[in-house]
C-alpha cells in the first residue's frame, strides 16, 4: 500500500510519466515475491525494501552537463569500438541524453533512423498476439510508467545498418536510491539487417534499480544481431527484458552478457511468428562477489518450421549465484519445430550456487526438442592433460575457463564486446581462490 502511494505520487510529480500503468501494475499484484514461481531462487525482496525515486524527480544530480559527460566517458572507456565499427551511437546518463564520446563512422545516416520514442500510444508491443499470455511481464508496466531516456531504431527495407550502440549509464544515487527505466524499440523492415549493442552501465553507490525494456519486430527475411550488456555494480538491482517478434524467414541472435556484480534478472523472449524464422538466444554470466544473475528465456514457436537454439553459460566465482529458467513453447500449429536449449554452469568456488530449470510446453507432436543442463567444476582430466604439457596449474585452469566461456564470447557481435568479456574473465581470474 505504502509503495503504491509512493510510486503513484512519484508518477504524478514526473512530467511525462504514465500514472495509469502504476495503477495497473499494483492492480495486477505489484512487485514479485520469492513465492512467485517465476522468481523462485531469486531475491525479489530487494525491489521492495525502499521506494525508488525517478531521476528527474529527485534533486538535481549529475543528469546533465559536465558531470554526466565525465561519468559517461568513464564507463564508455571500457568499450573500445574501432573507428568505423559503429554506424551510430546514442547515450544517456541517468536518462538524460549525452553525446557518445567515442568514434562513429560517417555517412551512414541513410541506412537507419534513430529517434525518440513517441508517446505512450506508440509503445509498440511485440508481446501482443500469439503467445501474449506467456509474455506477461509485470515489471514492464513500471517501465512504461516511468520510461525516461530511450529510443526507437528503424532500419528501412533492404538496408544493412551495420552496428548501432545504445548506451545507458547512471551515476551514484544521492540522496535516495533512484530508478531508471530506459525503453528501446527496434524495428527491422523486411530484408534489412542490423547489429544493436545495448549497454546498461554504472555504479549506484548505495543502491538503485534499473528496469529496461526492449521490444522489437524483425520483418520477413531481416536479420538482427542483438547484444545486451549488464555492467552495473554497487547495489543496483537490474531487471531487464527484451521481446522480439520474428516474421517469416527472419533471423535473430540475442546475447545477454551479465558482468555486473549486482543482482540482475533478465528475460530474453522471442516469438517465432513467421514460418521458418530462426532465433539464437545466448547468455553468459561471469559471476563475482555476491553477484546474482537470474536469467530467463522464452522461445514461443507460433509458426511452422521455425528454429530456436538457446545456450546460456555461467562461470561462478566467490559466492555468486546463477539461476536459469528457460522455456520453449510450441503452439499447436507449429509443425516441424526445431528447438534446443542448453544451460551449462562452471563452479569455481564452494560458495557459488546454481539453480537451473528447463521447461518445455509442447502442444503438438511434430517437434524436435533437445534440452540439457549441466553443473560442474573444472575437469580434473583436462587439467592434468594441460599440466602434463607444461602449463602451470593456474594457467591450465584459466585456459579451461576461457574455453568454457569462449563458446559464447566467440560469437559476440563486436570486437569491443569480446574484449569486454575477456576483461570479465580477467576479473574472475583475479579472484584466485578457486577450489575446483
Amino acid at each position, binding site marked *: 500500500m505504502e509503495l503504491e502511494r509512493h510510486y503513484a505520487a512519484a508518477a504524478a510529480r514526473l512530467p511525462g510519466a504514465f500514472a495509469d500503468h502504476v495503477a495497473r501494475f499494483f492492480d495486477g499484484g505489484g512487485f514479485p515475491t520469492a513465492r512467485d514461481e517465476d522468481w523462485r531462487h531469486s531475491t525479489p525482496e530487494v525491489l521492495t525494501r525502499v521506494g525508488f525515486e525517478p531521476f528527474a524527480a529527485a534533486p538535481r544530480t549529475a543528469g546533465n552537463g559536465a558531470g554526466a559527460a565525465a561519468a559517461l566517458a568513464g564507463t564508455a572507456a571500457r568499450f573500445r569500438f574501432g573507428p568505423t565499427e559503429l554506424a551510430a551511437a546514442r547515450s544517456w546518463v541517468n536518462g538524460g541524453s549525452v553525446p557518445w564520446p567515442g568514434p562513429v563512422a560517417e555517412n551512414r545516416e541513410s541506412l537507419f533512423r534513430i529517434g525518440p520514442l513517441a508517446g505512450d500510444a506508440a509503445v509498440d508491443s511485440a508481446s501482443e498476439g500469439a503467445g501474449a499470455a506467456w509474455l506477461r511481464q509485470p515489471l514492464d508496466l513500471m517501465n512504461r510508467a516511468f520510461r525516461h531516456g530511450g529510443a526507437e531504431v528503424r532500419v528501412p527495407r533492404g538496408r544493412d545498418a551495420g552496428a548501432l550502440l545504445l548506451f545507458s549509464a547512471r551515476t551514484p544515487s544521492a540522496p535516495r536510491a533512484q530508478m531508471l527505466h530506459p525503453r528501446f524499440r527496434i524495428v527491422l523492415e523486411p530484408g534489412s539487417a542490423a547489429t544493436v549493442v545495448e549497454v546498461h552501465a554504472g555504479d549506484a553507490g548505495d543502491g538503485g534499480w534499473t528496469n529496461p525494456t526492449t521490444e522489437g519486430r524483425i520483418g520477413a527475411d531481416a536479420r538482427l544481431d542483438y547484444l545486451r550488456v549488464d555492467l552495473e555494480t554497487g547495489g543496483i538491482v537490474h531487471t531487464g527484458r527484451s521481446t522480439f517478434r520474428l516474421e517469416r524467414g527472419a533471423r535473430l541472435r540475442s546475447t545477454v552478457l551479465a558482468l555486473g556484480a549486482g543482482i540482475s534478472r533478465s528475460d530474453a523472449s522471442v516469438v517465432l511468428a513467421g514460418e521458418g524464422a530462426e532465433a539464437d538466444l545466448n547468455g553468459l554470466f561471469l559471476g563475482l562477489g555476491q553477484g546474482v544473475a537470474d536469467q530467463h528465456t522464452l522461445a514461443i514457436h507460433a509458426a511452422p518450421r521455425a528454429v530456436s537454439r538457446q545456450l546460456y553459460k555461467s562461470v561462478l566465482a566467490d559466492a555468486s549465484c546463477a539461476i536459469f529458467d528457460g522455456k520453449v513453447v510450441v503452439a499447436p500449429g507449429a509443425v516441424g519445430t526445431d528447438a534446443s536449449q542448453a544451460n551449462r554452469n562452471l563452479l569455481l568456488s564452494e560458495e557459488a550456487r546454481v539453480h537451473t530449470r528447463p521447461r518445455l510446453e509442447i502442444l503438438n507432436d511434430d517437434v524436435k526438442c533437445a534440452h540439457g543442463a549441466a553443473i560442474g567444476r573444472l575437469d580434473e582430466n583436462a587439467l592434468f592433460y594441460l599440466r602434463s604439457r607444461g602449463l602451470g596449474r593456474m594457467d591450465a585452469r584459466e585456459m579451461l575457463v576461457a574455453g568454457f566461456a569462449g*563458446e559464447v564470447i566467440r560469437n559476440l557481435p563486436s570486437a569491443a564486446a569480446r574484449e569486454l568479456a575477456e576483461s570479465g574473465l580477467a576479473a574472475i581470474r583475479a579472484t584466485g581462490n578457486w577450489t575446483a
Partner: protein
Amino acid sequence: MSAGNGNLLEIEGLRVEVEGRQILRGLDLAIPVGTTHAVMGPNGSGKSTLAYVIAGREGYDITGGSIRFRGEDLADAAPEERARAGIFLAFQYPVEIPGVNNTYFLKAAVNEVRKHRDQPELDAMDFLALMRERVEALHFDPELIRRPVNEGFSGGEKKRNEILQMTLLEPTLAVLDETDSGLDIDALKVVAEGVNRMRSPERSFLVITHYQRLLDHIVPDRVHVLGEGRIVESGDRDLALRLEAEGYRRAGRATR
C-alpha cells in the same frame, strides 16, 4: 644429462596406490639415456598407472620405492615441472578440451617449456612455421589444428595429435601409452616414423603396448613384461615376438 650410471629414468621398488588399491607392487625399471624400452602386459596389469605416475598425476600415490629422472627424485614434482624438465606422456585416452583451440594450446605449451629450458619463446610466425613443418611430417590434417583440442577427433586423429605434441615439445623422455591402439596400419607407420625420427643419443622412449605389432616399426632395445604390478620378465625384442605367439600367461614363469 643423466645420472652418473647413464640411466635417464630409474624406478626402484615402486609401489603405487590408486583410491586405496595397490596397483604397482614393487616395480623396477631402468632406462638408459638414448634407448627405447617397451613395456607390455595384459589389460589391467598397471601399464597406464606406470605412465601416469611417471607424469605425476594426482591421486596416484607412491607408497614405496622411488622414481628418479636424471638422478633426481620426482615424488614431489608437479606434472608441469616434469613436463618442463623433459618428460612427455602420450595419453592412451587423450582428453577432449572444448573451447580451447589446438594451435593456441600448443603454442602456449611450447613456449612454456622453452621458457623453462632457457630457449627463446617463439612468436606467432615462428611457431606457425614450426607447426606447419611438424604437421606435414605426420600427415596430420591441418584442419584439426584449428579445432578445439581433440574435440570430435577420431581415435586415430587423437593419437596423431599426441605425437604431434611430442614432436613440438621435444622431450628427453617420451612415454607412449598404447599409442598404437585405434590406428590403422598406415597411420601406425606414420606415427612410428615420427617417433623414429626423434630417436637420438640424448632421448629415451618408454613404449607401452598391448600388441607387438608396433614394435615391428619402433624397434625397442629392451622389452619388459608387466604382470600384477611388477616387471615379471625382461629381454630383447624377441621376447615381444614370443609373447605374441604364447600369450601373457606364460610370461614370468621362469623368474617367479
